[in-house]
């Protein structure tokens, strides 16, 4: 079932939770709504479920307008952030709820619930109360309950937010496999970019009630459309430089930027991810590589596959973060004060436009 969101706006008082948002979700895809809190991602999810009504705009499912369809008639499975399990009911009755309110015959309820408890690997726990389960188990009860009514769409609000790191990663992989098996159109909300990128086919980055960028995880990561996306996806070096004649200048070092061929210089922000900077030891490179920046090491943290180095360019007080593959850095003596050379490999340049707000 495909979902089409057209020009949806939603205000809470004077706060614009969603500002003219349009989005298409393809049939069978797994889409992540990614953004900081207050970006409108949960509101959008609730509007798709019918739990909120948009001020203007429309929602379509497979071309049929469902904007005014009541939540109980939408046949949407919704997994709440804190699961919202019915506390006074057993796990079995929680999963059975959607079938019971539809007056499904008892035998059918029994077989369906048992099938679902098997699917979420909770066989034998049907008699427990939600309070007797671990966080991960509750999460799966919430999922089974949502799936019981055979929804056309599955919506998940911060599905792993309340779980600890290890359970989170396990559940994530398990949910991805489950989605591939069932093939239901699914949308989930998260503020964790790693979660969005690992799980989703498509990622929608939201900020201030608007969509900043939509695309595959690779597209969003490699070609961030806005400074916000660049910033939000984490760990980036920002430099207030300038552009002129098809080049951007980063600490005085020119980087090709054909998008701005004009001779008149303009202020610009230059963004480089830590792995897009190359670091070499100044002692090794007697003659510093051309177009490199002389700097000295401030801090080194060797953590797993990458060694994170914080450096300060000579004569500057900004701190640059550089990721060096651990294999490369193994033989090096890197300690505070060591002189190094930094070469930019790749950069993104954003010119301040009229809508440039950070």
């Amino acid at each position: 079932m495909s979902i089409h969101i057209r020009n949806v706006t939603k205000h809470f008082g004077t706060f614009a939770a969603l500002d003219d948002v349009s989005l298409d979700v393809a049939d069978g895809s797994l889409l992540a709504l990614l953004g900081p809190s207050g970006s409108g991602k949960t509101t959008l999810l609730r509007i798709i479920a019918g739990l909120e009504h948009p001020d203007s705009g429309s929602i379509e499912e497979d071309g049929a307008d469902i904007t005014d369809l009541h939540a109980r008639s939408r046949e949407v499975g919704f997994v709440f952030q804190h699961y919202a399990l019915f506390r006074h009911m057993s796990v079995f009755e929680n999963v059975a709820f959607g079938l019971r309110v539809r007056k499904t015959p008892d035998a059918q309820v029994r077989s369906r619930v048992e099938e679902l408890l098997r699917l979420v690997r909770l066989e034998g726990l049907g008699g427990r109360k939600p309070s007797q389960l671990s966080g991960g188990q509750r999460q799966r009860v919430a999922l089974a309950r949502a799936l019981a009514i055979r929804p056309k769409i599955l919506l998940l609000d911060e599905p792993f937010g309340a779980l600890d790191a290890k359970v989170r990663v396990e559940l994530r992989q398990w949910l991805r496999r489950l989605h591939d098996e069932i093939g239901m159109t699914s949308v989930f909300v998260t503020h964790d970019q790693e979660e969005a990128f690992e799980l989703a086919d498509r990622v929608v980055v939201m900020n201030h009630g608007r969509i900043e960028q939509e695309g595959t995880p690779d597209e969003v990561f490699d070609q961030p459309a806005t400074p916000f996306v660049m910033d939000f996806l984490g760990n980036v070096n920002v430099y207030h430089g300038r552009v002129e004649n098809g080049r951007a200048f980063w600490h005085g070092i020119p980087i090709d930027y054909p998008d701005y061929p004009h001779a008149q210089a303009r202020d610009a922000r230059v963004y480089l991810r830590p792995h897009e900077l190359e670091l070499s030891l100044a002692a090794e490179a007697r003659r510093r590589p051309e177009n490199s920046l002389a700097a000295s090491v401030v801090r080194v943290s060797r953590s797993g596959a990458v060694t994170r180095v914080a450096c300060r360019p000579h004569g500057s007080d900004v701190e640059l973060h550089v990721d060096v593959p651990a294999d490369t850095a193994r033989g090096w003596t890197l300690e505070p004060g060591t002189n190094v050379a930094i070469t930019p490999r790749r950069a993104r340049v954003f010119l301040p436009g009229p809508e440039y707000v950070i």
Partner: protein
Amino acid sequence: MSTDASRPIAALLIAAAVAIVGVLIVVPLVAVFAEALAPGVAAWWRALTDDPDTRHAIWLSLTVAPVAVAINTVFGVAAAWLVARFRFPGRSLLISFFDVPFSVSPVVAGLALVLIFGRQGLLGPTLAWLDWKVIFSWPGLVLATTFVTLPLVVRELIPVMEAIGPDEEMAAVSLGANGWQVFWRVTLPNIRWALLHGIVLANARAMGEFGAVYVVSGHIAGATDTMPLRVEKLFQEYRQPASMAVASVLAGLALVTLVAKFVIEHRLATEARDLERARSADGTTHDATLEAA
């Protein structure tokens, strides 16, 4: 926290509390029962049952209070739901209005009812034309009792409904439940102990109400006298043993209420703990079942 210096102060405060509770609550309560039962259980029973006016007063209290409590329950659930689930202009003002019966003297409440429903009152001519009697009659007693007990159920429910939050109800809706199904299967089971608590308190207050009922009843023996009014009338007529017998029934009801309250509050505390546990990010238990997957 019990340092050596604080121990004598703590002991002193505890002693003071025990003394106050003893003098103001325990001793008078015991005195009522002792006085009522002094002539013997048989005499006590006769004092309650031989006089038709006393019998009627007991019967009247046992009918007025449940009706008032029932009205309160319906109103309380609806009002608490409105206030806990919706934000609208005037919401906090409305919540303050729920408390008016606590701050207004019951006598004033009774007088207000007479002003509206009495023969010379606002609705007097209409009621006369319909031939409905409210003041000096059973409906007036119910109205007055409902008024003074109004805050008890709704006040009990608002914090509980706010603590539970709307998520379970929304989950029920998204699973296809209609309004009634949400209420009976999700909302009511979640608030049942708080509701029962409110009902018990409202019932105790309804049984014991004197001031408002005194004004609207016209204290007609055998017609509009409730138990508390009967106690007063017997006392004024120097029929102390009979007065004490009825008073002991009221006091007995209070003791039953106390026990019920104790049990219910225990349940409420358990539920609050469960809610807390359900909310806490209890993801630390390792999911062995998933590893096998």
